[in-house]
């Protein structure tokens, strides 16, 4: 690595992007990454550092040279798309997009209809990555494995739970023959993911926070296990958790969150760090907003229609998933019964002379046909998972809408409160009673108050009014800020949804085509055997 003598990093970094990295350089970069993590942790825990006082380190040219910063790390040259986790990388993925290379964004390989759905899913992930958040530009994230642990839970009972291995490694350039840097790893269990998400929900109420994969298996068709410890379920959950992390990492706002960064990098101190943020207090307010029944007089129409849309979407996707499960069940039955042909053809072939061979081989093909449904339906589960993600997303959307309503409600209440106070003051000043009140009547009946009393009341009211106006202004500003930020994210979400769902439909169509091709293949083979009878 070329030495750096000054704080200027421009130009040098661009040059670095062209070059290849040796192992030594990789190693040094890894060290720097670690150092940086420590720095960030320190900041998160409230220690003052010589870096920027803000809790999250930002890129500043004035950053002392000996401390690693984002800009430095960003220069892990051309961004490598995340290849399908562990060993399943296929040649297709090597065609993937290189961000910063200036080429037009293309989601490759869709034209190749032999692509599997997992690859297609990775296309979605890769598409997200190509948008290029700062986080993703510097690290690859994956949930590589799952494992079982036993331990004592909160009520001191032994329990078995699953943990997931999160791997992070610097986004590396494609080095020829170079071994990839060993990733940093840590283990997390599902409840920690949940904690992370709750934190994010509370901290960013105007953001549609990506959902977690389901806690318990739902919408299962009969062959699928509903057991949380079932390896297939665990595997699908692993994929879902990885997807969750990547969605966070590619979100323009959430990817910069420090707690999220620590989640990926700090195994031990993370829980404390989260609690330190004090998000629990805000959590209550959020809960209130979600469960409260209040009527808003003037909600923003966009939010109302968005809320209705997300309710509709939730309903229709639930329906779809339910029926899909039933369809899967039935299809399974059709295929499996064909296996019986295999057996009877075999038995029949035993009493035949010339017809025997043809029948026997045809029988084998029928067995193959019957067995093929297992893989077909397993692949379809990926599609179901994609739909489920958006089903869960609708909840997040609704919660943002609800938050808006709450703010709006508070705003309206504040305005209402203020106007009431103003009226009161006016009444007191002019002596007219516009608002009927018992107090007013009794005072009329039983004697007026003294002018001094009245004056002090007016003064108190004026004070109150001023405070109220201040509060109203604040609330207004809060509401506007919320609406602006929220709507920003909503637009982003809409675009993401359109793209993802279309990809999902394409991959579903590809699955169907593959199923048809398999069917044609098997029956053609059987037909050949019949012809030889």
């Amino acid at each position, binding site marked *: 690595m070329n030495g750096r003598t000054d704080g200027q990093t421009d130009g040098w970094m661009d040059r670095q992007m062209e070059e290849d990295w040796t192992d030594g350089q990789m190693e040094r970069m890894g060290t720097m990454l670690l150092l940086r993590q420590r720095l960030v942790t320190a900041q998160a825990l409230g220690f003052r550092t010589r870096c920027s006082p803000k809790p999250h380190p930002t890129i500043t040219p004035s950053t002392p040279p000996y401390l690693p910063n984002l800009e430095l790390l960003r220069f892990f040259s051309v961004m490598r798309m995340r290849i399908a986790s562990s060993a399943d990388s296929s040649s297709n993925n090597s065609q993937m997009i290189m961000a910063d290379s200036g080429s*037009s*964004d*293309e*989601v490759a390989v*869709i*034209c190749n*209809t032999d692509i599997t759905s997992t690859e297609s899913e990775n296309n979605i992930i890769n598409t997200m990555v190509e948008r290029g958040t700062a986080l993703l530009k510097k690290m690859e994230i994956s949930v590589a494995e799952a494992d079982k642990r036993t331990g004592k839970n909160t009520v001191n009972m032994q329990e078995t739970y699953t943990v997931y291995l999160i791997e992070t490694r610097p986004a590396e350039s494609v080095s020829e023959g170079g071994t990839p840097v060993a990733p940093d790893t840590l283990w997390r269990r599902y409840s920690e993911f949940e904690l992370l998400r709750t934190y994010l929900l509370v901290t960013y109420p105007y953001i549609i926070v990506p959902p977690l994969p389901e806690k318990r298996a739902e919408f299962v068709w009969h062959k699928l296990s509903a057991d949380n410890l079932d390896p297939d379920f665990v595997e699908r959950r692993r994929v879902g958790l990885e997807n969750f992390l990547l969605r966070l990492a590619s979100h323009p706002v959430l990817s910069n969150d420090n707690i999220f960064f620590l989640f990926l990098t700090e195994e031990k101190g993370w829980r404390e760090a989260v609690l330190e943020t004090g998000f629990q207090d805000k959590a209550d307010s959020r809960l209130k907003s979600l469960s409260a029944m209040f009527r808003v007089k003037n909600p923003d129409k966009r939010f109302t229609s968005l809320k209705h*849309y997300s309710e*509709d*979407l939730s309903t*229709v*996707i639930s*329906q*779809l998933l339910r*029926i*899909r499960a*039933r*369809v899967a069940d*039935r*299809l399974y*039955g*059709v295929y499996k*019964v*064909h296996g*019986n*042909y295999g057996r*009877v053809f075999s*038995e*029949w072939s035993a*009493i035949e002379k*010339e*017809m025997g061979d043809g029948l026997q081989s*045809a029988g084998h093909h029928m067995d193959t046909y019957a067995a093929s449904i297992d893989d077909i339906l397993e692949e379809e589960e990926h599609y179901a998972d994609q739909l489920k993600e958006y089903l869960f997303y609708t909840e997040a959307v609704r919660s943002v809408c609800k938050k808006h309503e709450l703010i709006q409600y508070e705003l309206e209440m504040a305005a209402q409160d203020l106007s009431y106070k103003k009226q009161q003051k006016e009444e007191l000043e002019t002596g007219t009673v516009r608002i009927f009140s018992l107090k007013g009547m009794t005072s009329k009946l039983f004697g007026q108050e003294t002018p001094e009393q009245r004056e002090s009341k007016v003064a108190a009211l004026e004070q109150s009014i001023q405070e109220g106006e201040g509060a109203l202004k604040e609330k207004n500003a809060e509401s506007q800020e919320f609406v602006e930020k929220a709507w920003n994210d909503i637009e982003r979400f809409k675009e993401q949804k*359109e793209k993802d*769902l*279309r990809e999902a*439909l*394409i991959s*579903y*169509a*590809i699955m*169907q*085509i593959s199923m*048809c*091709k398999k*069917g*044609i293949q098997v*029956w*053609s083979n*059987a*037909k050949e055997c*019949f*012809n030889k*009878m």
Partner: protein
Amino acid sequence: MSVGAPRGLASSGQKLITEILHPLSAAEEPLSPGHDVTISAEKDKQEPGLTNGTPLEISSPASASVLISRLQLDCELEADAHDPFGSGEPRDLFVTVDDPKKHVSTMETYITYRVSTKTTRIEFDLPEYSVRRRYQDFDWLRIKLEDSQPTHLVPPLPEKFVMKGVVDRFSEEFVDTRMKALDKFLKRVADHPVLSFNPHLNAFLTAKDLNKRQGLALLTKVGESVKNVAGGYKLRARPAEFCAMGEYLDTFSQKLGTIDRISQRILREQSEYLTELREYGAVYSAWAASEEQLQRPLEGVAGCVTTSCGALEDLSDNMSQDFLPVLREYVLYIESMKNVLRKRDQVQAEYEGRLEAAVLRKQEDRTPIPVEVEKCQDKVECFNADLKADWERWQRNKRQDFKQLLTGMADKNINYYEKSQAAWESLITLLQEKQTEDKTSDTN
């Protein structure tokens, strides 16, 4: 109806083995034993043995049939590919059953079918005939054939009785299925070297009004009782080949039954799958209604699902209308064959019984063995020969029929998948077009 030895058709051919009265038909009109065997020049090359006059055993009348059947066997093997029902020789009798029509009279409602015949045979006065027949008439024909040709296997008819409440006897499907079965029946009879010359068939094909004798049922019963007299004898030893036939038929019948059950189960599963699939497509349509950009893709998916539904329906219909009936008909065919085997057993038993009795008497009072016993022996040998010939022919036909049936089933399944695949592929092109459209508009 003229009865006589068939004269050779005007074509090059050998001297025929003809004019041998069928031993078993002594009580009835003598019928011609053999089909015209015209061996064309081509086939001569392939069967040098016969044309060169390799000595054949013609020691007993039974051998005539053996010879004929052996010739048939060779010819038919070659003709297999082209002519599923063919006997390999040039066919001179073509029959078709079609054009079902409903007749309503005061007494009853029934369906008639048009039976068309084209032939060059001399037994027929005209080269073409067209008559209308109803199921009853076919039934009459079959009974007549069975009675007059007890040693031959008569093809089966479709089921006679249908539960009036359950099956609609006049529905298009039922009539169509039945018509196809009747057509097959008639074609098989027409192709049979012996049955096709039966005068009852001739009458069936040509007469304007089929003068079915009164007391048809009575006649049938009489015929049966005559045979039952012979059935009083016990069979000693059935020749191994007929045992094998019997066993084969039993097992085969069993397997066909299993296949029938499996097919029905598949149909049930497919029907339930279809129901769910329709609902599934509808949800996509409903979803499309609430979307903007995704509307077309979702509608597209709904459309593909609907297309698949239609294709699946076609497949199921085909299975229930074309596949299952043929299976069931073969089960009936097997029953017929078993009956013939039983009859053969009876004839053999009668012979053995009489022989035993005669031998005993000879030992007692030196009475020579009566001619009847010899005649019985002839009967047995003739029956055996006929049966074997028919068996071979039946096996061949069975092979052809099932080859056709199963390849047909495979074809229908392939069709189903092809239709479905085409629909999904066109959806993908649609979706990908849209994608590139959007992408170019994004980058612009």
